[in-house]
């Protein structure tokens, strides 16, 4: 009896070690896939060991087996289907959804533990405190991640939704679940405290994420990932299961670091983002006055193609506009054409390009861009002065030189030094603003040509035109 339990716990320990190794292998594109496979194998082992443990303990009823098997099958089928079908542009929504279910499962474990305890009143703080925290964090993550996924999918408005009293609510709700947590710890058998806590936490998840704009979603997703990790770790405390504590905290700290990196890349504090109201979401082509285009220099596909064909170094600056137009394949084709012609091509990727950390890299990888051509901000910035052409596709705020000056909405945000290239071409549909809602000085720079078109259509035209020059 005891041997089985011990063996299973050694398997859990091995699995935990494999999770750490798996994440460690993710630090290079060459080994990353192996890391993921290792981690998945460890998870499979841990799950198989749990089945063994459950069978060996013999307390499980026939219905219990049925619940376990059918729930597992239904969940696995849903997960598999979603993972296979998802478009790479929709990846952040899916990750957010997986976050939601993970947090939800963790919260349910604590709810179950408090409800099913034989002597609920006798539960010590050893169980009731992590239980209460698990419920709060898990439920907040569940509803918050669903709202975030809804925003990214466009089901919920991407704009910050601020209703009267929202701020007040965001003060009252945490205060009430702090009170609820204390109540539940003192009286673990109180059903009112339990259900109240679940309700308040679910509501807070919604009111916390609703006012945050679409542009801040990379930070929010990273933050919610960290939350789920902590919820799972708390479930580990409730169940006395070290494997859950290790895996949960591993995820939590990784999510925490990514959150910090993202926030730094936008020069915003995490608190600032969570309190919200700045990011106005996907720049609905703001119908701003037509005063600005007077100073800009519109260019045609042929003009741009000549520049590209006779350049020796071209830097592409992709932004979310590219992803939204699903034009990553067209860009990849254009780049390949130029590379084949002997032109040095690379991509400048700002850390917050896309809808989750590093999302742009995935989109470019999907378009078969070799990862050796992807350059991070710190690496590419010194190279801009040598670039003959910098081609900006749907990136706005991250290229605005105004960020170098104090006194505006994006002051101090690290940007790509696109304005230092010898010439600049911007592909954009209109003079609409980015999420910061300010004019981009880059567009009125004399060396900048504006190519007003849809990213996908424009890149196809460029490819055809360049083909004529180099073909």
């Amino acid at each position: 009896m005891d041997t089985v339990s011990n063996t299973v716990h050694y398997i859990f320990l091995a699995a935990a070690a494999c999770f750490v190794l798996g994440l460690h292998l993710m630090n290079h594109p060459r080994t990353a896939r192996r890391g993921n496979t290792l981690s998945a194998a460890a998870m499979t082992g841990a799950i198989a060991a749990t089945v063994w443990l459950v069978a060996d303990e013999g307390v499980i009823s026939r219905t219990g087996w049925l619940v376990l098997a059918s729930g597992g099958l239904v969940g696995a089928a849903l997960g598999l289907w979603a993972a296979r079908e998802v478009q790479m542009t929709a990846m952040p929504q899916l990750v957010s959804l997986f976050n939601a279910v993970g947090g939800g499962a963790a919260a349910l474990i604590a709810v179950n533990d408090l409800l099913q305890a034989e002597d609920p009143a006798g539960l010590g703080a050893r169980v009731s405190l992590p239980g209460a925290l698990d419920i709060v964090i898990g439920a907040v993550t569940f509803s918050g991640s669903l709202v975030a996924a809804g925003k990214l999918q466009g089901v919920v408005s991407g704009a910050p939704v601020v209703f009267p009293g929202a701020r007040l609510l965001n003060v009252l709700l945490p205060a009430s679940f702090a009170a609820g947590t204390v109540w539940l710890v003192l009286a673990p058998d109180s059903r009112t405290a339990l259900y109240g806590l679940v309700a308040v936490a679910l509501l807070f998840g919604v009111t916390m994420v609703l006012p945050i704009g679409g542009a801040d979603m990379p930070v929010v997703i990273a933050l919610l990932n960290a939350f789920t990790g902590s919820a799972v770790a708390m479930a580990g405390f409730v169940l006395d299961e070290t494997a859950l504590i290790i895996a949960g905290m591993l995820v939590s700290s990784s999510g925490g670091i990514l959150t910090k990196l993202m926030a730094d890349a936008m020069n915003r504090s995490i608190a600032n983002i969570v309190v919200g109201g700045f990011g106005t979401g996907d720049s609905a082509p703001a119908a701003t006055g037509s005063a600005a285009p007077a100073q800009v220099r519109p260019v045609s596909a042929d003009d741009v193609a000549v520049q590209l064909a006779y350049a020796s170094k071209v830097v592409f600056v992709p932004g979310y506009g590219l992803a939204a137009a699903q034009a990553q394949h067209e860009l990849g084709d254009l780049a390949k054409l130029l590379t084949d012609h002997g032109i040095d091509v690379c991509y400048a990727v700002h850390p917050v390009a896309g809808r989750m950390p590093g999302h742009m890299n995935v989109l470019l990888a999907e378009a078969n861009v070799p990862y050796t051509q992807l350059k991070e901000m710190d690496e590419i910035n010194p190279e801009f002065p040598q670039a003959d052409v910098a081609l900006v596709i749907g990136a706005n705020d991250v290229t605005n030189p105004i960020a170098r000056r104090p006194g505006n909405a994006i002051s101090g945000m690290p940007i790509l030094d696109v304005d230092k290239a010898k010439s600049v071409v911007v592909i954009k549909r209109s003079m609409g603003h980015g999420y910061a809602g300010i004019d981009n000085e880059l567009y009125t720079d004399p060396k900048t040509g504006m190519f007003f078109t849809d990213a996908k259509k424009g890149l196809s035209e460029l490819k055809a035109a360049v083909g004529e020059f180099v073909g």
Partner: protein
Amino acid sequence: MNNVDLLTAITVFVLSVLVGVEVISKVPATLHTPLMSGSNSVHGIVVIGAMLIAAESHTWLGYVLAFTAMVFGAMNVVGGYVVTDRMLEMFKARPAAEKKQKAEV
């Protein structure tokens, strides 16, 4: 079930945070999305917790909670690993393309 001593559990908790920080801070920005999705699948370990509560449930409420937790957890685990693998497959090195690029430089 092993009754893990609280102090041991807290030790594990703190060390895991530090290991996480150490392992993650070296990952390049290129891989941040697969990393997040990969760590997302790691927290799918919550499915083990769901299995344990399914094993100890004996009331209809317990079964409902366990079933929902199982669905959520299994979805998190399976979907997370599959989608991460799909992403990372796209990051595979393209030796031909790289060699060509080097030759041209």
